[in-house]
């Protein structure tokens, strides 16, 4: 059973984030005829802003630390840029006050780069907290936006490259109208911004996109790049650092995804760490949770919390296992009550409490919480531009240590406190392996993630420059295809109600036909790919009835009868010779 409510909330959050709005009560009264007339101010103004300096923050960039930490020493121990203005600092502090999982009150923000392009003023801020470095860009003027990212300082200390990209291709504003790419429509953005930090001896940072190369502004040990009015789908494909001595270095980073087809994984990375498990654990508990020991902090009241709306809290505590990150992780037990999407019973739930207010989480029936593994984890990414993701979750009492093996060969000892854990990692470092050990150092859990949520590699990417083509239309659906980089086929099915599906297929397969989308319900639209020898396809129904479909350009899109079930497709060549059968499988 898929727990859909968190999914809905997260998807809605991405598709329709809570807008930043300014109250215009006088405008309401004027519209109601209750107020004296005055020069019209346009409805609600979307605030942009410094106020949004919110989500992050930190302590002065100066402070302690040694000077022998390598090329990023200005970031680790110095004071890049200049102090933010009083109003900027106050805006930041004001926003922070509203956040339970906020940065420390004495966080001091530094202004690093300010520039203006196309009527938009961009200001890059930096701040450091404990063991994390954060950057934030605030755009104001003709369009507003704010984006931020934090990196653990360990990434700077161990970094072999002289540049660390922290946000890549973050959208700023939208232009009127839409651009169609194949079956889909996209807004054009006013600008796309990328930023990060640079080592002391970096002379220039060059970003190559699909359509051009440009030099970023490099100042205050940072870089900021603005791509004005890029075409939809245009992405940064390469970042190069040029040193003061003239040498150049390619900078690894995670490309911002576009569309639904591509995953993220660097070709030079590999899976590291132990394989398999040395001891199998069945079941598992969290003793302090069951005994209701008041460790850590109390569970904060959160009436909009998913759990709070579907049951009542039995016991819950919150921890901050990772000192480099302000996100707190809560673990709790809940009694689900009808009416609810959950079956009645006791659930073990965990939840992130992040500075921005958003946070993922999930629930399992308490008795089955560790049925699959003694380590349960999730990965949270703010958006496709942010170069960092958070890995967090909870573990049973059997787990004494958790290691995260990155694709670069680095190993992160994941901070684990009272059975909850969290750590940030670079999205450029897939594939990952998450390994749990018992108190004797034996591997008791072992999970891998080869790429970010979806398959990666050339077979899952449309060929650069290739155009989507509508190959078939039937019922309320259109089938669009484009060749993949690996000479396979990427496809999109688009229904007239706006819904659809997509995927990619390898170049070869067995048999004359293969299914692209083969729903098993009556009345569905079925999409098939046919080899060139296939001249016609006979559709067989459960009732014994048959129908015929003719491939066009190697594809079949067939609107099945609403009152019967399709059982198979049989392919014939132009001489009426039978080439093979594709049965329709039903669960």
């Amino acid at each position: 059973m898929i727990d859909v409510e968190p999914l809905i909330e997260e998807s809605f959050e991405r598709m329709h984030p809570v807008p930043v709005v300014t109250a215009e009560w006088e405008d309401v009264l004027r519209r109601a005829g209750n107020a004296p007339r005055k020069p019209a101010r346009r409805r609600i103004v979307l605030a942009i802003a410094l106020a949004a300096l919110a989500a992050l923050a930190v302590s002065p960039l100066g402070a302690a630390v040694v000077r022998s930490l390598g090329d990023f020493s200005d970031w680790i121990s110095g004071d890049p840029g200049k102090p933010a203005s009083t109003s900027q600092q106050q805006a930041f502090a004001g926003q922070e006050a509203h956040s339970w999982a906020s940065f420390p009150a004495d966080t001091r923000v530094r202004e690093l780069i300010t520039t203006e392009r196309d009527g938009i003023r961009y200001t890059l801020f930096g701040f450091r907290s404990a063991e994390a470095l954060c950057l934030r860009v605030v755009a104001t003027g003709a369009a507003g936006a704010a984006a931020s990212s934090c990196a653990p300082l360990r990434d700077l200390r161990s970094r072999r490259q002289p540049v660390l990209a922290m946000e890549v291709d973050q959208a700023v504003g939208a232009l009127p109208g839409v651009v169609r790419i194949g079956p889909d429509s996209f807004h054009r953005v006013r600008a796309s911004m990328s930023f990060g930090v640079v080592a002391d001896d970096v002379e220039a940072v060059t970003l190559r996109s699909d359509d051009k190369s440009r030099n970023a502004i490099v100042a205050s040990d940072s870089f900021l790049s603005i791509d004005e009015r890029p075409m939809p789908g245009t992405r940064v494909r390469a970042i190069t650092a040029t040193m003061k001595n003239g040498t150049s270095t390619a900078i690894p980073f995670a490309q911002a995804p576009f569309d639904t087809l591509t995953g993220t994984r660097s070709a030079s990375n590999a899976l590291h760490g132990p394989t398999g498990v040395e001891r199998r654990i069945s079941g598992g508990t969290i003793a302090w949770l069951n005994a209701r020991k008041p460790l850590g902090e109390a569970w904060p009241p959160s009436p909009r919390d998913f759990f709070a709306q579907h049951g009542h809290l039995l016991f819950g505590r919150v921890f901050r296992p990772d000192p480099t990150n302000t996100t707190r992780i809560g673990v709790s037990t809940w009694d689900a009550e009808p009416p609810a999407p959950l079956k009645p019973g006791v659930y073990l739930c965990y939840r992130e409490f992040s500075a921005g207010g958003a946070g993922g989480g999930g629930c399992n029936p308490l008795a089955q919480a560790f049925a699959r593994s003694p380590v349960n984890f999730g990965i949270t990414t703010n958006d496709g531009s942010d170069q960092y993701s958070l890995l967090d979750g909870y573990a049973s009492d059997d787990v004494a240590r958790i290691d995260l093996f990155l694709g670069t060969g680095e190993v992160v000892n994941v901070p684990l406190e009272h059975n909850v854990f969290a750590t940030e990692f670079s999205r450029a470092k897939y594939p990952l392996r998450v390994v749990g050990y018992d108190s004797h150092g034996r591997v008791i859990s072992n999970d891998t993630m080869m790429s970010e949520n979806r398959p990666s590699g050339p077979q899952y990417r449309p060929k650069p420059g290739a155009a989507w083509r509508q190959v078939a239309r039937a019922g309320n659906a259109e089938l669009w295809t484009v060749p993949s980089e690996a000479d396979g086929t990427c496809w999109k099915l688009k229904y007239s109600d706006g819904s659809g599906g997509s995927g990619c297929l390898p170049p070869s397969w067995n048999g004359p036909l293969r299914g692209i989308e083969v729903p098993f319900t009556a009345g569905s639209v079925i999409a098939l790919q046919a080899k060139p020898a296939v001249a016609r396809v006979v559709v067989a129904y459960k009732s014994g009835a048959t129908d015929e479909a003719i491939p066009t350009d190697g594809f079949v899109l067939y609107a099945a009868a609403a009152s019967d079930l399709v059982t198979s497709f049989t392919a014939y060549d132009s001489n009426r010779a039978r080439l093979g059968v594709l049965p329709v499988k039903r669960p």
Partner: protein
Amino acid sequence: MKWMAFRGASVEEIEKIYRRGLDRFVRAATAIAGSESRGSDAVQDAFASAVRARRSFRGDVPLEAWIWRIVINAAHRVRGDVYEGAELDDVFAPSTNGNAVEDLAVRRWVAALPERQRHVVFLRYFAGLDYRGIATALEIEVGTVSATLAAAHTALRRSIQEVER
């Protein structure tokens, strides 16, 4: 003769709800109206309507739920005025940053929902209303809200499985 008693609402009470929940009102109205500017306009108009009609508020439901009803109707009216016949792509505007697989499933799910169900979903997830609040705002029974969401969740599970396949 039967007299209908009106409790009425004060401008101050309405203003308090406006200031406290403006972002949620705009978010939900935007989802229904199809764009942030139309959604914002609809919210301003809705609150103006609420101020004008405040004396007719009976007090038999929470004031906020009464206002939600007005906002939903205003957003719907704006959408109908401007975008009659528009596809649901306009409700869930095209992404500027690509779509995650799960977003695709949710988008597909929302697009497939009948209008009344869609309003229930918006009020649940954008407005954060509980079942009773949704029932009041849409003038339906609490049981209908519960059943509607249960059916909608089932449809989404199916949609996710299809997208992931």
